[in-house]
């Protein structure tokens, strides 16, 4: 008779989410790749919001930006506690400095870095991965609930208005609803009384309603371990497809990339590598003045 191995004793209330799928070694590898993903993506995000968007940079903004890139350096040098601390400091500073304009993904970045920080000292990776999975599922769920609750998707109302702000959505509207597109695109969204902003295209209405439906379906599917890969792939594909039209790459890559915590480790690794490469290409665009600024939201 012998006791169960120490590693199997519950160390966190979130272990049921972290145990499924990953061995302790895999959890450690996954945690390292999460740090790579968050550190590089956050550093590029901070470069845009703290520096390239403005003409003048204040000392606190420089500190936030410096923290972001110092965290990447610490991550490369395998100083996990230092990297997590710098990430949290940089992202929290930027969120405070940008308030009230801080984007939701700016807040999500802070939450992710907080989770990385509190799990870093004793490298409790299974608990970290468990908490991350819950956060990712909750964020996706909320995005779907809010779309349903505000009611701008039942007749593609959101798409009709957004087509005035984003070229990609205007193209989408023309493709799916050419008869309706001319009328809707001629409306002035700043003119009180203008409207109605909605679509008569069945295809576009189905597509719009699919948006909130998949955001509710995916978190429900994630409750079943066997459905993780299919649900995470669907969610990532959906996010990347939407961002092909909205072209908000920081947001899209973050949300799509985070679904990787539910994918098999080797897939997640490739996803992180691809995201880092895209981030560096985007950074090149930013530094050379290429592309539209809002592409990097």
């Amino acid at each position, binding site marked *: 008779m012998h006791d169960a191995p120490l590693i199997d004793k519950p160390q966190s209330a979130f272990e049921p989410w972290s145990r499924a799928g990953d061995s302790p070694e895999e959890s450690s590898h996954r945690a390292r790749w999460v740090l790579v993903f968050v550190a590089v993506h956050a550093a590029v995000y901070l470069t845009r919001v703290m520096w390239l968007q403005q003409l003048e940079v204040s000392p606190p903004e420089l500190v936030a930006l410096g923290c972001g890139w110092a965290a990447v350096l610490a991550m490369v040098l395998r100083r996990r506690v230092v990297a997590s601390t710098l990430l949290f400091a940089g992202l929290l500073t930027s969120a405070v400095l940008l308030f009230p304009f801080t*984007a939701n993904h700016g807040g999500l970045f802070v*939450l992710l870095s907080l989770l990385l920080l509190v799990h870093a000292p004793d490298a409790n990776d299974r608990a970290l991965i468990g908490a991350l999975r819950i956060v990712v599922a909750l*964020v996706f769920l*909320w995005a779907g609930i*809010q779309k349903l609750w*505000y009611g701008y998707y039942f007749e593609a109302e959101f798409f009709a208005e957004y087509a005035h702000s984003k070229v990609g959505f205007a193209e989408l509207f023309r493709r799916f609803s050419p008869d309706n597109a001319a009328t809707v695109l001629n409306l002035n*969204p700043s003119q*009180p*009384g203008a409207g109605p*902003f909605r679509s008569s295209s069945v295809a576009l209405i189905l597509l719009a309603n699919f948006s909130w439906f998949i955001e509710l379906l995916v978190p429900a599917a994630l409750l079943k371990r066997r459905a993780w890969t299919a649900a995470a792939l669907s969610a990532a594909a959906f996010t990347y497809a939407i961002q092909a039209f909205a072209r908000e790459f920081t947001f899209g890559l973050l949300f799509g990339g985070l679904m990787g915590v539910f994918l098999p480790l080797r897939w997640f690794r490739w996803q992180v590598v691809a995201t880092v490469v895209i981030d560096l290409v985007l950074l090149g665009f930013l530094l050379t003045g290429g592309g539209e600024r809002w592409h990097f939201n």
Partner: protein
Amino acid sequence: MALQLRRLRSLVVALALAVLVVWPFVHRYLQPQYDFDCWKLFGFGMYAAPTPRFYVSIEDPTQPGRVELTPPEESRVALREFGFEAMSLGRFVDADAFARRAIEWFPDAPAIRLRHERTWVRAGTDRVGLWVRYWDVVRNGDGTVTVTPSEDDIDVDWVAGAEVQSVPFVPNFN
């Protein structure tokens, strides 16, 4: 020490997750009452509703009708930032400091009116609605400045081009 660290961590993670579960509900409940932008304030309401558009102007309240004053060129960035802030925060915005700064751009004016208009497509009618809020800024005889926000915000909806309602601001926590 390790046990304390574990407890602290569990507390931090539980708190963070509790906020993530509860705050979007509160956010959605407060949004129609305070008219802040659902894309802001961490409620994960991005893409849930169209982003509002805004227009900020400074008027001369001593003249009949709406007479817009032309602010100096260097005030453009500040005006735009204020417009974004008022759009993002809705009724939570504190315009006092900005209003005091704005009257300094017009040294000869005894009073100005700072006006913030916001338009956005309303769910239900699917037409553009208008929300107007203004602040009267008066230079007193003793050199002090008084800022008075509009008592009722003008909140206007349209159905087929006709104005159908004007709703005063009444917070409702029932």
